[in-house]
């Protein structure tokens, strides 16, 4: 097992380098650039543009720019934003808690709702409850989050005025739990609904598969209560594919939700990336993309390892 994990980790290195190389090339292919932000200033001259290009290293050929970035990155220097001149790692760490806070609440909500609902729909297949859940989860799955978010803002924020229109807390107010919760409601609903849809359907499908297995009948024949049969024998086996899905979703926990954070003005990683993208702030973009790529590679490894642990039939060598 240790050898397997070590091998996978070593394999990840060239993969991450390749990802960063492609990311860099794509960012550079977008028209415009970090200097476009200065052009509104009537005092900005061609001379200023040349000076800033040199200061940011933009006058170098693209492969040199990339190699410079890579060389610094492996030494732990993530570079500095072209716009705020702050260290990229600091900018990321500053936003990370806000994203973790939102995504943690979202995942908690998803698990708390999707797991019981998924089990119930499977054990009561084709009941009215099952039909309603299947129908609505399908709707949730097909709803684009940006549209849902705007709709919720329009309805509950603008029309009914139940919840604030965005942000993480009311400015100028000291920490207030109720205020925080009110700001949390709409973005959590927006992000959770889709996830609830997918998790419920996953669990329902694998539960249905498990329910008809021989060992379930054996458990019932032993005289176990239905509750114990479903939860201990059924869910434990049905949850295996769900664990993989959840592990693969892990990177989202850190990188945040790009569009949703933007719509709700949530000061997290997604918004950091969005703002940096509008300014062609390459160091920040590369920092966030690399973190995301690293997490995805890591999450895949975690999923594989967990899978082997939960399902004794699978062994790595």
């Amino acid at each position, binding site marked *: 097992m240790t050898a397997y994990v070590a091998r996978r980790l070593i394999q990840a290195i060239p993969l991450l380098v390749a990802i960063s190389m492609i990311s860099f090339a794509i960012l550079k292919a977008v028209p415009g650039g970090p200097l476009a932000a200065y052009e509104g200033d009537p005092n900005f001259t061609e001379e200023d543009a040349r000076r800033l290009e040199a200061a940011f290293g933009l006058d170098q050929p693209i492969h040199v720019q990339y190699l410079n970035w890579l060389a610094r990155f492996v030494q732990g220097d993530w570079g500095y934003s072209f716009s705020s001149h702050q260290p990229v790692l600091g900018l990321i760490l500053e*936003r990370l808690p806000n994203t973790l806070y939102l995504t943690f609440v979202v995942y908690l909500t998803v698990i708390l709702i999707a797991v019981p609902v998924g089990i119930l729909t499977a054990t009561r297949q084709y009941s009215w409850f099952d039909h309603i859940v299947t129908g609505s989860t399908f709707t949730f799955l097909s709803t684009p989050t940006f549209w849902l978010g705007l709709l919720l803002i329009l309805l509950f924020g603008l029309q009914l005025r139940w919840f604030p229109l965005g942000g993480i807390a009311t400015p100028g107010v000291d920490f207030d739990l109720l205020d925080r919760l009110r700001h949390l409601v709409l973005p959590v609903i927006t992000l959770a609904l889709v996830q609830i849809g997918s998790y419920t359907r996953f669990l329902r499908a694998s539960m249905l598969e498990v329910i008809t297995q021989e060992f379930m009948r054996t458990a019932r024949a032993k005289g176990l209560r239905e509750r114990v049969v479903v939860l201990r024998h059924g869910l434990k086996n049905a949850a295996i594919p769900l664990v993989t899905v959840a592990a693969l979703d892990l990177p989202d926990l850190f990188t945040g939700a790009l569009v949703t954070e933007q719509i709700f003005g949530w*000061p997290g990683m997604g918004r950091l990336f969005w703002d940096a993208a509008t300014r062609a702030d390459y160091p920040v973009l590369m920092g966030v993309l690399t973190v995301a790529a690293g997490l995805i590679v890591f999450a895949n490894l975690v999923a594989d390892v967990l899978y082997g642990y939960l399902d004794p039939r699978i062994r790595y060598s």
Partner: protein
Amino acid sequence: MRRTVLVILGVFSIVAAACGQQPTGGTTFITSPAASETPVKGGTAIVAIWQEPTTLNPLYRNQTVATVVGNVVIEGLSRTNKDGEYEGELAKSIPTLANGGVRMSADGKKMEVRWELKPDIKWSDGQPLTSADITFAWQRWLEDKKVNTTTGYRDIEAIETPDPLTAIVKYKTIWGRYVTDITPLPKHLYEKEADVSRTEYSRKPVGTGPFVISDFKVGESITAERNPNYRVKDKPYLDKVIFKNVPSSQVAIAQLKAGEVHGMWNLLESEAVDLEKDANVTVFWDDSPSVERIELNTAENKDMTDPNSRHPVLGDIEVRKALLYATPKQQVIDKLLAGKVKPGNSPVSRGWAAPKGLTQEGYDPKKANDTLDRAGWTKGADGIRTKGGVRAAITITTTTGNATREKIQQVLVDDYKAVGVELKIQNMPSATLLSASWASGDPRKRGAFDLVMYGSSPGVDPAQTVTERYHSKQIPHAGNNGVGQNYTRVKNAELDKAIDDSNATLDFEKRKEAYARALKILNEQYVKIWFYDRADIDGFRKDVRGIVKNPWQEFTDNTEDWFLRK
């Protein structure tokens, strides 16, 4: 009733912040005549912003929103008042030739400017502001490679500081724009830092303004608290100004209506008309220096065009004239902009340099048709004119996603068709169209456009705009790596001469005359259709008082005078 007395004569009327009627425009409002209301002390004003300043430090900032927020902390030697006149901010007065503050060298090739600071000004940390802070600012702006622009500092040869309140700035050349350049920096703090850009001064710069940034919550809000060392006694009235980060201008409007914020800046004309219906909100309309225009390419529409080439259609001045006559400026303003802005006549529409009485011909489709008939452009079976086998078919380009501009384009397609010119729409994202960068492929720089529509504003001193946009030496092309902004490729010896004249003297009257001449010749070239003077619109709750609209400054320029009515 705009004041005619020029700043340079040394006549400064202090604009009492909270008083006065704004004479220009029929729809401009200024809150709270001071006579009827006593300012209330205390309270917090919340202003919605929907971009976040990445840095507030004047050395590096390049966003409008950074100036909006930074204004409460950062002050310069001078400021421009709402009438476009200069007045001292940290300086006692504006040095001019007339008052002896500016002196020319014997050979007339160099100059020096003597600035006197107001006494007893302190930085917000309590240290005194001295002339050394001016010298330090000049040095930093040139030493630090990451600053936004060195304009205004790079022509300085030396600064002498005979006493703590006097700085004599010596220029290498004749530099007409010396008034608006200098922002002192707190030497005692910044000189200790190897790289100021990476310190906390980016978010909490130290200044002399009415407030101090006390809290910068990334992505959430920026809180400014009263500066205990502010030079004006009993001001500011407010305890705090909070800049609240909101996702979009639509959300800002909603929060303004709901009373969650007190104010917001930079509304679109279309948004403002709707917001005006709200009884709790005052919408400030003012003419901004920005002019929405259509520019006509006189060279061939081709990537990296040869500046000496001639556009097959727009190369003919008669066609350009006809397009101006076929452009229904006032009708568009009435229908699409609620009649609230003025048709444009010149790129320099406000301030001391604005030429008086300069006009551009109005809408007259018959004259347009006659002009084209006379010039030999004959209508074909499809109603489109041709001459010598060239079809009068051109394109218009503007920024994608701007509803007002897109509607105007539709109007133009119909109106130009009526005079026999086919117009096709070919829009681009603003990041590409307006990047002003040769390398990033700005089509204006490259010459790859027929008509282009956008807005642009000159500074209160229009030297840079007039020179870089209309002088024939400023035509961007491959040979000069795309330097210059003469996008229409207009070349006229008299125009060049007028511009050269404007740059050859420090005498404001002479400069004014030269600008008037240059802009008149420019209009006679028919390369620009000045569509309308953009409005500058902000919205505030009625309980916020003391705001003065000033087209040359962001609205946060006088936060020390703001107060909240009980």
